């Protein structure tokens, strides 16, 4: 078996048609250019080599005097492969890969809606993110689009998938939900209590983030990245900064990396604590919600005391970090972790021993491993359904690359139900507490940031970071004057939302909130 599996698969199948870049940054990333007709062949070659699709996006390269670009990013283990093709400005059509990789059908609907680049052979061409009342010729990501003008509303109807027959009824939910959560619309077709089909329709919180990046400086871009999904502010900021650092060859100080890792793990613990409580609450066990909220609040207050912000927003900056920790901070955090760990284990015991809770969470909302693989799931959802993926292992930034030091134990369960997604979180909280202790003990001295050089025109940068939901991908491209020409952000939710749709049929309607909470995907990170 070749060590550079995806690269070899594409090189063997396409021969001289695939032109590989010589320089790879990061070293696990390979890039190649193929003729647009071969874009689909490359996808099939990757599929045969058991690769997964991580992201697909388009660029407008008119600023370089070219037409459009179409990109697909594949992953196999630690290796990433970006396949790109150039498309002419007057007829931007490329062969769809949706029949090879399921998640491509959402990516390509988005590409068609937002960039006006046409996937040939895409079975579902309904708009995505773009709503039916937008003008049909509004393609916000094109350079020629006037982003400052308000969109006029037109008539138009979204076509829903329909289940029909005697006794089948439909439940529309949202966009304004009953709780304090983000807006989205779900439509169930049900027969009695059993759900036959669930279709999600998202895009309500589309804020034009990718377009907004193109108006900002590289430094301000990090602030915006930190607000792509507010609950994942650290991981998104690291993703953006790492991509920028990869494209400029900037190396942040060692201590900055260690601090980033610590922020990332604290964010993971805080969100997992909140999630476990909320999942129990949706099974009508409110006691756990309040218990876990209390622990989460403890962590957030410590963040505020130590780093000046409860969610550590804007504490990760290009070239390093903007918050430090001293010896007294370290000992305060160690004491906090001891207390957290003690309290947490008591609650885990209660979770384990509660039969009525177990009855709700076991065998509910099952995403089978083969389906998880098919939708190319990432993060906690993937690990609860048998996929062993974690960027901290496979694509680590320092100090996670020190496997001898950290020895990260990644939990993988195969049952794919709500319970598995809870167990993954429980396991990860324990791991993160352990990792933070190691980070505090071995943190190197030194500066916490360096100046990032201005990117060279046309350069690109890539990064993959394991946020608490899963793998976050950033891809940056500098324009002819070294400005941001394109910033592609792929939140784990982009693929994992498909998993929710897949796991609901066969469950009863009242279990939907429980399943949804166990996924807890981001609306804002998906809609951008």
């Amino acid at each position: 078996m070749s060590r550079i599996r995806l690269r070899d698969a594409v090189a063997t199948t396409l021969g001289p048609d695939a032109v590989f870049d010589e320089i790879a940054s990061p070293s696990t990333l390979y890039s190649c250019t193929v003729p647009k007709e071969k874009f689909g062949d490359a996808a099939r070659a990757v599929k045969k080599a058991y690769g997964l699709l991580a992201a697909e996006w388009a660029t407008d390269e008119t600023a370089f005097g070219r037409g459009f670009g179409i990109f697909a990013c594949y992953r196999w283990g630690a290796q990433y492969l970006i396949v790109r093709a150039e498309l002419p400005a007057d007829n931007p059509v490329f062969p769809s890969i949706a029949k090879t990789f399921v998640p491509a059908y959402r990516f390509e609907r988005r590409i068609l809606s937002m960039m006006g680049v046409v996937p040939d052979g895409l079975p579902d061409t309904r708009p995505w993110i773009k709503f039916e009342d937008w003008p049909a010729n509004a393609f916000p990501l094109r350079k020629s689009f006037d982003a400052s003008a308000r969109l006029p509303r037109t008539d138009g109807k979204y076509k829903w998938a329909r289940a029909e027959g005697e006794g089948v009824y439909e439940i529309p939910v949202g966009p304004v939900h009953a709780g304090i959560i983000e807006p989205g619309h779900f439509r169930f077709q049900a027969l009695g209590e059993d759900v036959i089909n669930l279709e999600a329709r998202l895009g309500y919180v589309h804020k034009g983030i990718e377009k907004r990046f193109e108006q900002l400086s590289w430094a301000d871009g990090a602030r915006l990245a930190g607000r792509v999904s507010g609950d994942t502010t650290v991981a998104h900021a690291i993703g953006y900064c790492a991509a920028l650092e990869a494209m400029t060859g900037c190396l942040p100080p060692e201590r900055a990396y260690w601090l980033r890792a610590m922020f990332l793990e604290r964010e993971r613990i805080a969100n997992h604590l909140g999630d476990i409580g909320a999942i129990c609450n949706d099974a009508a066990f409110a006691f756990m919600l309040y218990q876990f909220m209390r622990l989460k609040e403890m962590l957030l207050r410590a963040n505020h005391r130590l780093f000046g912000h409860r969610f550590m927003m804007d504490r990760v900056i290009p070239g390093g970090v903007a918050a430090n920790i001293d010896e007294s901070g370290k000992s305060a955090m160690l004491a906090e972790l001891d207390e957290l760990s003690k309290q947490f284990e008591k609650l885990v015991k209660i979770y384990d021993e509660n039969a009525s809770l177990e009855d709700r969470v076991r065998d509910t909302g099952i995403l089978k491993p083969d389906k998880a693989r098919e939708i190319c799931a990432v993060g906690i959802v993937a690990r609860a359904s048998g996929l062993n993926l974690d960027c901290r292992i496979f694509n680590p930034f320092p100090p996670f690359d020190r496997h001898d030091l950290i020895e990260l134990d990644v939990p993988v369960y195969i049952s794919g139900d709500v319970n598995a997604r809870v167990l993954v979180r429980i396991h990860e909280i324990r791991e993160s507490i352990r990792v933070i202790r190691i980070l505090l003990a071995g943190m190197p001295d030194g500066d916490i940031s360096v100046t990032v050089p201005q990117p060279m025109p046309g350069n690109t940068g890539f990064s993959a970071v394991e946020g608490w939901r899963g793998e976050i991908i950033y891809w940056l491209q500098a324009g002819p004057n070294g400005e941001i020409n394109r910033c592609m952000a792929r939140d784990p939710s982009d693929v994992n939302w498909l998993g929710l749709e897949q796991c609901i049929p066969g469950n009863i309607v009242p279990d939907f909130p429980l399943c949804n909470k166990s996924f807890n995907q981001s609306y804002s990170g998906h809609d951008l």
Partner: protein
Amino acid sequence: MIRILRQIARTGVVTEPHHKPDDDSGIIEIGRLLEEAIRKRFRGSLAIRQVDAGSCNGCELEIHAVNNPIYNCERFGIHFTASPRFADMLLVTGPVTHNMEIALKRTYEATPSPKIVVAVGDCGCNGGIFGENYASLGGISKVIPVDVRIPGCPPTPAMLLEGILRAVGE
């Protein structure tokens, strides 16, 4: 007491302790005034409908925290309701997106008068870092009338409670 509340509301946020989440006495002081105002003006029960009109979910985390046992807003008579039909107040996070504009207007219309609208977060106040473009229309006041603004990115639970106090005390 009403005079004091009015004075507090007019003055707005000037004192430091209210902003410190660690300062329990600050919360208790806000809470005491909140409870008083809610008892006098809302018969002891203020029903709030939260609407996410396009937020990044940061503000929602802090609104959740207001409900946690440490802040426990229910002790002051604040209750987050599932429907706008019986809400006294809309707590709206922003920026308002083009795709949420209609839903926000409908929610506003579904809320019985008299109603109070509170815009939450920097983005709810003026669009924040997202600015105004084809997809993001800016602050909440671009779409529905706003009575009180709570800036912050995101505002802390203490700032949220203080802002709600300003809204009900006026």
